């Protein structure tokens, strides 16, 4: 084992020329080199497909069987690449520990919290019970509230905390945190990140933080490694990155961040890099001809409750919610998971029957003229049919009268073009399209119905940032064409770019409503203020300091 760099023992972990190949020999990760010193935080930043998660899995020796790692990953003096499982087991736990993204599948649903923790702790009986309680309160949860519960009785934030408690139980020297808060609500995200930060300082532990969010990376870490398409784009000190980064790719990533404090003229990354798109514009810039105050959609006193399954109380998803959408305007609905925002969308679309209250469309507008773009691009299109089939179906249903093939094809081509896709996409099948492309097809399908109102339910939440801005620009262009929109999002920055007015939903109730600019610049309700404070700023202060709350809410998520 040659330690050629002449400073053995200085690095806790050093990765050199790491390469991960699939069974067909294609490199998924190529020539990745970086190192972590004791106590240091290194962030691995990249979009989906950048290879950041595979790099972490390779370090933990947890690559799927059909992938092979080569190069060198040295843990102090031990080589991890090609090591036997027996050697790896001595590293995992006391040396390296891992915190994964999805809090919902992280814990075994059949195992109560105490047993999950007991697996990694020494001792027995009263001594063990004490240790378990100590670990639970370390992660900011009252031990009695979690110890005997099963994972499915806990909210996402609490599960992720328990996952953290399990990961830290043997005081590892390095924590691999793979998108630890991506699946959590914004307010919970900040709490959990602050907790990780505090515990990390307390234990003197090093961390490799994998994230797609540059702002989280810069506020949490000492050094940042930016990855794209399996390779390293640049790596360096966090201050370098904060000032924009040296590489074109990093600058694009920065440019893709949407600001929450102003509305941009053009959302596309290219336009923003030019500077022209980055210019702020007045907030009420949407709405083409005919935009005004005539309401096109009125929701009155809308309530929806879901009956409980088995024993337990039912859920009041919406509680006397009212709103008005004016023609040609865009109304944002902001809320976290469990706020009832999706239920509201489904009631407006007629996919769900409200328990009480009404949804009224202006006379003359057919149900079919209220269309929707769903959150999940992967199940929005039928995998059995081509894009052209899906779009032609929309055209034919709108037209009523039979159209010739040529007319249908021409209309499809024109609409695909308007969402920024080539006409040849009509011949392709959904599985050959990326998430962003699928979402554009879904928008095209909705537009082909010539809708009066488009309901967008978190249309970009599942997409990478650079792709998000392209899709959002498509939606903005549609707004400019006079389309009225109900835009549902948890992301305040997205709401700022796409909406004229917002309502803020919290546990099924409207807590604040008003013009987007005034609500986001000067929130009146405490909950809105907390949502705004949870938008990552990229500064260290965002993460330092005490947690906002002692425990995550029990019912959320």
């Amino acid at each position, binding site marked *: 084992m040659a330690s050629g760099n002449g400073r053995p023992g200085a690095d806790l972990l050093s990765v050199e020329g790491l390469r991960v190949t699939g069974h067909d020999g294609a490199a998924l990760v190529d020539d990745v080199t970086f190192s972590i010193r004791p106590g240091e935080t290194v962030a691995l930043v990249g979009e989906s497909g950048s290879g950041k998660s595979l790099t972490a899995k390779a370090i933990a020796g947890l690559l799927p069987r059909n992938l092979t790692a080569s190069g060198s990953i040295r843990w102090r003096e031990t080589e991890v690449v090609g090591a036997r499982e027996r050697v790896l087991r001595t590293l995992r736990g006391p040396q390296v520990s891992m915190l994964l993204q999805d809090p919902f599948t992280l814990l075994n649903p059949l195992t109560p919290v105490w047993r999950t923790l007991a697996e990694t702790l020494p001792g027995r009986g009263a001594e063990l019970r004490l240790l378990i309680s100590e670990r639970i309160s370390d992660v900011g949860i009252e031990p009695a509230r979690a110890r005997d519960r099963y994972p499915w009785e806990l909210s996402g934030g609490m599960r992720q905390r328990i996952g953290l408690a399990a990961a830290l139980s043997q005081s590892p020297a390095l924590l691999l945190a793979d998108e630890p808060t991506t699946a959590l609500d914004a307010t919970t995200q900040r709490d959990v990140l602050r907790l990780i930060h505090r515990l990390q300082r307390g234990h003197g532990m090093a961390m490799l933080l994998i994230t797609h969010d540059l702002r989280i990376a810069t506020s949490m870490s000492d050094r940042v490694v930016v990855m794209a398409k399996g390779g390293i784009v640049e790596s360096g000190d966090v201050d370098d990155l904060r000032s924009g980064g040296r590489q074109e790719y990093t600058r694009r990533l920065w440019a893709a961040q949407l600001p929450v404090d102003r509305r941009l003229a053009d959302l596309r990354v290219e336009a923003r890099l030019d500077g022209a798109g980055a210019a702020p514009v007045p907030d009420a810039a949407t709405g083409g001809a005919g935009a005004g105050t005539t309401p096109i959609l009125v929701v009155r006193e809308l309530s929806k409750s879901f009956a409980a399954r088995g024993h337990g109380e039912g859920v009041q998803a919406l509680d006397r919610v009212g709103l008005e959408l004016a023609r040609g305007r865009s109304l944002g609905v902001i809320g976290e998971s469990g706020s009832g925002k999706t239920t509201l969308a489904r009631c407006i679309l007629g996919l769900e029957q409200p328990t009480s209250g009404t949804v009224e469309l202006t006379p003359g507008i057919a149900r079919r003229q209220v269309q929707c773009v769903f959150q999940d691009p992967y199940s929005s299109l039928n995998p*059995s049919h081509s894009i052209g089939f899906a779009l032609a179906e929309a055209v034919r249903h709108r037209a009523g009268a039979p159209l010739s093939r040529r007319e249908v094809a021409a209309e499809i081509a024109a609409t695909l073009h308007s969402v920024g896709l080539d006409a040849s996409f009509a011949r392709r099948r959904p599985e050959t399209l990326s998430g962003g492309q699928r979402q554009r097809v879904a928008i095209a399908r909705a537009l082909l119905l010539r809708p009066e109102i488009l309901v967008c339910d978190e249309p970009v939440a599942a997409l990478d940032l650079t792709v998000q801005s392209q899709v959002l620009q498509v939606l903005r262009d549609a707004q400019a064409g006079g389309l009225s929109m109900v835009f549902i999002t948890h992301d305040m920055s997205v709401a700022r770019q796409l909406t004229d007015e917002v309502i803020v939903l919290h546990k099924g109730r409207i807590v604040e409503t008003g013009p987007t600019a005034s609500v986001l610049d000067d929130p009146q309700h405490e909950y809105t203020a907390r949502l705004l404070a949870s938008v990552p700023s990229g500064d260290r202060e965002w993460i330092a300091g005490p947690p906002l709350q002692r425990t995550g809410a029990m019912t959320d998520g």
Partner: protein
Amino acid sequence: MSTGLQTRPARQSSALVVLALAFACLVAGLCVVSFVGLGLDPQTQRLLEARQPPTPGHWLGTDLVGRDVLARVVHGASVTVIGPAAVALGAVAIAVPLALVAAERGGVVDAVVMRTSDTLLALPSILVIIVIAGLFGGGYWLAAAVLVFLIVPSGLRIARSVALGQKNLPYQEAARLIGASTPRRMFVHTLPNLLPTIVATLLLDFVAALVALSSLSFLGLGAPPGSTDWGTMLAENLRLIEQNPWACLAPAVMLVLTAYSATTIGDWLHLRLEGRRG
């Protein structure tokens, strides 16, 4: 973050699949031969040459009354395979539309369909057929017709659960918002996504029907005596096991290999068709 890598279920060894496909082709070929004839003579009795082990003239020897076993095995292919194939097709043709309707309607319709299928599933099929044969005089095609209904539930359950999984996906709701009618959603949007399940069910039903019908023939309740059905042959030639073991081994081996190939091909097709979807 998802890495875009899906670990596929372990692929079956491709050699096995190739063998299974080859055997299926062989059986299909035998069916053709038994229709065309090609100078086969499965029925002529040569009492003087009865109970012979394999000879150059009779590669698999002769049976109790001197009929050529090889010719009978070849001729038996179509007799044995066509019944189960028809049963499987019939069962799937009933199960799939029922599953689509049950999943789409839910509520009472779903309950009636599913409880009926549970009841059918609880019945021991061979016993039911024996009783019905006793009441109505029996016969191969009556048994097959009854078997169709007894085999429907297994495929119905699987198809319904897959259809239920599709029901609330956004693409279905998008179709509703476009204004697509319920039958259109069921048959144009849901049905194609059931294809892998349908293919797998078809082959599994075939195997179940093959086993059930040959068992009945073996018991003398299916194909008539003297028929070249492999189940009947197995029963009749069991008495010859010491003089000419091939006479009963050959149809038995053909039955086992046919069932095994169909199962293997069903699995393989299912994986292939599923894998094509994103």
